[in-house]
């Protein structure tokens, strides 16, 4: 039983494959030396070493507004994986071929604090990959209508810089990063601006609004309207098992992962399976999509709770 195998030391775990030479051995040592048989022993009982059933994701929490100096920010934790996203808006001149559209710049950083394998001076291998995935998903899901970021057609528009920092890397980095990006966008408060006398766009502080001589406000909307919000779930495939929301240990042992992104109207936004030793059949992909649907409902609830919690305050 799974419970017995994780309890004390000196258990006789003569598992499949490399374990047969072990005989009497400490559980922790077995886990380090023969990780794959250790996991397979748990998978036989449809459970994982942290007592999660195969299809359950880890505890997720979203906190809005941790960075006071940013226009929108969010801190997301999925299990131990922690992501901090912050958005800063700056006024810029829109390009000639899109005069009434703002623009979006998305960057994903993995500073060396997040994981022992990231070395300073050399960026983590997965960081640019996740950065590109995030950009692609956010743009292709059309969550944000760039026309809403426009101020004065042809002259001024918002440039939204989204920076996501991974503070703790423990698997499912893309899921946490996407969730933090969405949470930061839902928290975003666009500052009020008006046109100054010399034609420049300047920020207007809240108290000036009560003043008699109110400057002409260029924008009235404070919040961005998010259309179809994308949610994702990463799963690991191993033999005939599908493990949802892997930890870093699981990702390193069983290398085949598949990420499915659905939007709030249950349409497929993206499927990403970057190779790997396990070949997925159509039925497996369909199962992953179903799992993502369930996860999406969970995430929608969590996001709504944190938004309403913020409004109360």
């Amino acid at each position, binding site marked *: 039983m799974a419970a017995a195998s994780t309890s004390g030391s000196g258990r006789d775990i003569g598992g499949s494959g490399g374990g047969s030479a072990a005989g009497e051995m400490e559980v922790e040592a077995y886990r380090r030396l023969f990780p794959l048989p250790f996991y397979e022993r748990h998978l036989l009982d449809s459970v994982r070493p942290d007592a999660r059933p195969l299809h359950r994701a880890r505890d997720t929490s979203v906190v809005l507004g941790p960075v006071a100096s940013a226009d929108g920010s969010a801190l997301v934790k999925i299990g*131990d994986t*922690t992501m901090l996203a912050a958005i*800063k808006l700056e006024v810029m001149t829109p390009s000639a071929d899109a005069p009434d559209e703002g623009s979006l710049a998305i960057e994903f*950083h993995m500073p*060396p*604090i997040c994981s022992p394998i990231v070395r300073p001076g050399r960026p983590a291998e997965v960081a640019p990959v996740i950065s590109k995935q995030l950009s692609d998903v956010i743009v292709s899901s059309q969550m944000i209508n760039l026309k809403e970021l426009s101020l004065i057609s042809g002259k001024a528009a918002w440039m939204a810089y989204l920076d996501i*920092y991974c503070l703790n890397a423990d698997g499912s980095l893309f899921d946490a990063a996407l969730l933090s990006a969405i949470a930061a966008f839902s928290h975003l408060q666009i500052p009020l601006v008006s046109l100054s006398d010399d034609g420049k766009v300047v920020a207007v502080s809240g108290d000036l609004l009560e003043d008699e001589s109110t400057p002409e406000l260029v924008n009235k909307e404070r919040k961005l309207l998010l259309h179809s919000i994308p949610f994702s779930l990463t799963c690991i495939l191993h033999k005939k098992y599908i493990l949802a929301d892997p930890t870093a240990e699981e990702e390193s042992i069983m290398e085949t992962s598949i990420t499915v992104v659905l939007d709030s109207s249950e349409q497929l936004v993206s499927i990403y399976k970057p190779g790997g030793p396990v070949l997925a059949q159509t039925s497996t992909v369909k199962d992953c999509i179903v799992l993502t649907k369930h996860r999406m409902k969970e995430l929608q609830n969590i996001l709504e709770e944190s938004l309403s919690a913020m409004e109360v305050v």
Partner: protein
Amino acid sequence: MEYLDSLTGFRLDGRRPNDMRQIRGEIGVVAKADGSALFEMGNTKVIAAVYGPREVQNKSQQINNQALVRCEYSMANFSTGDRARRPKGDRRSTEISLVIRQTMEACILTHLMPRSQIDIFVQVLQADGGTRSACINAATLALADAGVPMCDIVTSCSAGYLSSTPLLDLNYIEDSAGGPDVTVGILAKMDKVTLLQMAAKLPIDIFENVMQLAIEGCKAIAQYIRGVLLENTKQLECCRGV
């Protein structure tokens, strides 16, 4: 600009000249790191993570009779008022990395861990003046959390001199006023100064007052850090059932 209101004696943020900003320290924020801490001084928020002692990654830098201490300081793009794209190796970051490394090296007992490497990574999430001090305080907490042997705890605080008054713990507005800014780092119990930096002109006797004020601030922070570490140890004892 009036940094000190002449009638009430309050500073721009309502503090008295000898008041430090509210500090808060938390241990164990990065689960994967050997030791980690979050330290806040007012609006300045800093995360430090310590990895080590572990095997030296670049064998050519290995020292045979002591540990190699490395430090990297970086600021998040959204940490200051305007979002500035910060290249990793820019001069300010490199200088502060060096300062933090040498300050921590003074207290880590490196001879106990030869041929190993201790990495200290500091990430500024929000900057409102005093980032250098907040980083050193966070690094001390993180090193203690990692169980790295140290001879004493290092704490740091800054002080300045504006409107003819020594002010403790400058925030960003006071810091950018162009007046002198003295940053001090001390070994708390041994009462020794490891870090002392000052930019701008200041008469010597006033400098002594300002430095003394900064040292008082450091001692107060040391008191707080000791409290945080004691609390943490009590919780660990509870968990282990002692």
